[in-house]
């Protein structure tokens, strides 16, 4: 079920009504309803893969309990590896089997001894990368004794499958989300309206910004070998906004929906395109995944401690793994590698924590230096996005080569597309809103808050009408494929 679908528009109020009016007196009943609703939400896409979630939840629930009963470190480690093997095993099979089989075969062919590997027609279960990492965080935290294992199976299953963030995050930590299932939730008017506001802004990002960029992006990337440099630049630029609108829009809707049910999810995006260097960008982009890798991969590897070469190795590992998490394709690995290269100079000089504040805090406009820094950072990410979007590394190089010539200075020749003007205008307005709200949880969090209620409602009504009028329909979220 997509957040931007009629089905979800019916599903959400029904669950909301049952949650606050029918089962509101019992915490267990509320959790059960959330679990049932989550399975229904997931099963709407493909009920066959519900078994994976259920199995994964069972394994981690019992591994948690078994680890807590065990004092012998080796046994504890063994149980942890059971959890890791099951979860990574599923992920590896469904997401990476074909990639490894093909790469293996190609490598042997290159070495002169071709071998046959069989390709399986596997459907990638939606959201597997997200819920697998979420449930893994539980097992690892229990192993590290950072978290008491739960005996409340209902809460645990509801935590693993919580529908607002099940298929595309934010990837919640058990330490944050699981305890929220233990305690009584009571309805909070301001929290609920705040949730609705964030859903509204998320929908603007998704259906107005991202989905309107998508057809042009597709058109340009599909004809990359025969179009001008300026068109290619436009395509890359639009994709940058498409992926931001798509993914951060999803996160906003997920966080807003959770608030309607009394839950707080972690922030997943924090205006990444207003970053002054690549390190700041990575503190602001897909925060839940970056911090997951930091806590469960980077720090255990030694993090920024140890010898210089080890620290550099750790940086590359973290970016490459992050790239590979996105998909079984060399393009994602190159994307990760490129980001590691961008990050390295700042990291070696020890400047990776220079920009911890919000750019131009308390001011209307950034300084010339800040503007330059933001443009350079955006330009670097834009180049990397080409690899992210292209279907192969060769295609990405053709794209970049096509951009690197004098036709880059020509006027884009897709002006016959009547939507382009609207997209440009909407992007401009969108960026202004984002800039004005850059120190908030989401751009319109406090906008017009001091104005009279009718004015605010008129504003929200206008935003909703913009979604109705300009929203493209039923496009899947890009991150569903990861």
């Amino acid at each position, binding site marked *: 079920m997509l957040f931007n679908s*009629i089905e979800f528009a019916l599903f959400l109020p029904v669950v909301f009504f049952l949650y*606050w009016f029918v089962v509101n007196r019992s915490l267990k009943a509320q959790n059960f309803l959330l679990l049932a609703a989550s399975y229904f939400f997931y099963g709407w896409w493909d009920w066959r893969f519900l078994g994976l979630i259920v199995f994964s939840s069972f394994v981690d629930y019992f591994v948690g309990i078994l680890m807590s009963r065990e004092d012998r470190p080796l046994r504890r480690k063994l149980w942890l590896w059971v959890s890791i093997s099951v979860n990574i095993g599923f992920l590896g099979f469904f997401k990476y089997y074909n990639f490894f089989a093909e790469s293996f075969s190609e490598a042997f062919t290159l070495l002169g001894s071709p071998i046959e590997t069989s390709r399986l027609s596997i459907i990638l279960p939606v959201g597997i990368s997200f819920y697998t990492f979420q449930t893994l965080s539980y097992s690892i935290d229990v192993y590290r004794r950072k978290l008491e294992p739960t005996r409340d199976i209902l809460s645990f299953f509801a935590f693993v499958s919580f529908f607002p963030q099940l298929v595309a995050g934010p990837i919640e930590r058990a330490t944050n989300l699981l305890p929220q299932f233990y305690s009584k939730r009571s*309805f909070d*008017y301001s929290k*609920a*309206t705040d949730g*609705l506001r964030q859903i509204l802004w998320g929908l603007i990002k998704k259906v107005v910004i991202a989905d*309107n960029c998508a057809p042009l992006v597709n058109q340009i990337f599909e004809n990359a070998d025969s179009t001008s440099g300026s068109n290619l630049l436009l395509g890359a630029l639009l994709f940058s906004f498409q992926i931001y609108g798509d993914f951060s829009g999803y996160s906003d809707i997920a966080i807003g929906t959770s608030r309607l049910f009394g839950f707080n999810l972690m922030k997943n995006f924090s205006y990444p395109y207003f970053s002054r260097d690549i390190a700041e960008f990575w503190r602001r982009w897909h925060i839940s995944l970056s911090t997951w890798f930091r806590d469960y991969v980077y720090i255990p590897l030694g993090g920024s401690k140890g010898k210089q070469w080890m620290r550099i190795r750790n940086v590359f590992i973290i970016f490459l793994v992050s790239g590979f998490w996105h998909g079984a394709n060399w393009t994602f690995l190159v994307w990760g590698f490129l980001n590691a290269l961008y990050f390295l100079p700042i990291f070696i000089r020890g400047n990776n924590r220079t920009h911890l504040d919000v750019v131009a805090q308390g001011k209307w406009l950034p300084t010339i230096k800040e503007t330059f820094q933001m443009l350079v950072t955006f330009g670097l990410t834009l180049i990397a996005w080409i690899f992210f979007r292209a279907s192969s590394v060769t295609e990405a190089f053709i794209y970049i080569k096509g951009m690197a010539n004098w036709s880059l200075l020509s006027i884009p020749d897709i002006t016959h597309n009547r939507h382009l003007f609207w997209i440009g205008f909407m992007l401009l307005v969108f960026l202004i809103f984002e800039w004005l709200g850059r120190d908030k949880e989401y751009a319109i969090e406090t906008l017009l808050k001091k104005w009279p209620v009718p004015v605010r*409602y008129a504003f*929200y*009504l206008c935003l*909703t*009408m913009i979604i*109705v*009028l*300009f*929203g*493209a*329909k039923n496009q899947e979220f890009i991150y569903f494929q990861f």
Partner: protein
Amino acid sequence: MKRFLLHSALFLGLLAIPVYWLFSQADGHADPFYLRFTTPEQKSLVLGTSRAAQGIRPDALNQQLPEANFYNYSFTIMHSPYGPVYYESIRKKLDPETKEGVFILSVDPWSISSRSEDPNDEGDFFENKRALANTHWVAQKPNVAYLLQNYEGSYYELFEEKPEMFLHDDGWLEITIKMLPNMVRGRIKRKVKAYTKHSENYRFSETRLDYLKKIISHLQEKGDVYLVRLPISKEIMEIENGFMPDFNKKILELSKEKGCPFLDMTPHNDRYIYTDGNHLYKDSALEASEQIGKWIQGMNNVKP
């Protein structure tokens, strides 16, 4: 909570006003189908796929048979081949009070074939997941359910006039495209390619033929049924002859079995102009519709 519900209801109520107004602006420019689901239930129908949608003009028929008041309820090969979905939709669109209706069913080899693995498995028919299948209300203006579920563009496009396409109030789909010879040749070439591929993927479906019979039987309770094979270009004709050489035989048997006359217009294919080899150009559609009208009139005259 009370305050929240009240504010939400108020907000949704206020939102409903401009949304309703927006949807009520949708007209024949909206898309090739919408208007057909907004008109009242009908007494005389033109049925078939896109050939009939573009090629049979109710205005021309009505001149020959004014008492019939035809309505074109044809869609495309992807939406309205004869089958359970079309059958149900026709039943809904038909005025239950109809007694002396006239029904023109356009037939061609594709409308009784299927490209599913088992051509007789009606659960696997490709129209099952398309607009006709999920449009339960076919006579509602504005048809909010259709626009929400099936309208493919952004809603601001409802205000845009699309110069190439206009769906008339009587259900006829008018296509206005340039008819320069080289352009037509290009379109025919593309259509031939598409239909050559169809001929490899499609197979005759006994189930679809049964549904055609079922539709005929149902309509015969409400009036007279006529079967028509519309003209097509020689290139497409060749493909159809290769794909289903006994098509006319099948339809003639059906015509005999059901007692409904059959007009095969393909012997006169070269009399007409086509936009792409498969669809009649609007002027030719007028001519062909007049021919059909005269033929029906003639049939009525010889009725005992």
